[in-house]
């Protein structure tokens, strides 16, 4: 069975600084997807970034980038130039590379960006 671990329950960062959120996972699958979702106080689940395991290049979306280490089963999220609107819960998630599969979530990291 797949598991996803987020070892940082809470993180804080000053506005404009950079912060890295950690995620590790366990799977015997060779091909899969990894995601970071953001959940602000509004409760909406918003996709931040996605990585396909067969792609060696790390995904990047504007200020958000990942460090994907497949052998180490690590998938960290880096947020550059942090903004107050980045304050939210961040969930790392795993999905097998098959149709109809489910997302398996980590326990989340609460990120607070302060002025």
């Amino acid at each position, binding site marked *: 069975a797949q598991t996803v671990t987020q070892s940082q329950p809470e993180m804080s960062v000053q506005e404009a600084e950079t912060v890295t959120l950690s995620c590790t996972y366990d799977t015997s699958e060779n091909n899969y997807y990894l*995601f970071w979702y953001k959940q602000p106080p509004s*409760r909406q689940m918003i*996709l931040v970034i*996605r990585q*396909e395991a067969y792609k060696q290049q790390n995904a990047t979306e504007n200020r958000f980038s990942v460090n994907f280490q497949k052998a180490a089963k690590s998938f960290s999220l880096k947020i550059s130039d942090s903004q107050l609107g980045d304050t939210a819960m961040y969930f790392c998630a795993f999905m097998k590379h*098959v*149709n*109809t599969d*489910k997302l398996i*979530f980590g326990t989340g990291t609460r990120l607070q960006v302060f002025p």
Partner: protein
Amino acid sequence: DTAVSQTPKYLVTQMGNDKSIKCEQNLGHDTMYWYKQDSKKFLKIMFSYNNKELIINETVPNRFSPKSPDKAHLNLHINSLELGDSAVYFCASSQFRGAGDTEAFFGQGTRLTVV
């Protein structure tokens, strides 16, 4: 033009009652899901449907019964509500695109409070 919409957003009810949460997606996706987020923010899959067929049932009590009248709708009916059912319930949909672009889109969640 909401992609995944669920109603109601808030639901307060007494123990023992029966209630339903409705979900609709206009993305043309084949797969729909129900996830439960508990008081510690942990998200876990409950059910998934693909083209109206039940694919995943994650050991959810049989008081919970999903129903998919068509692939754009997935409703969740809960009988004999218990205090422990209090949580946020998220509907989601996805379309597996193979080597590309898979992601799950979430509804805004339904906060169920059983008193």
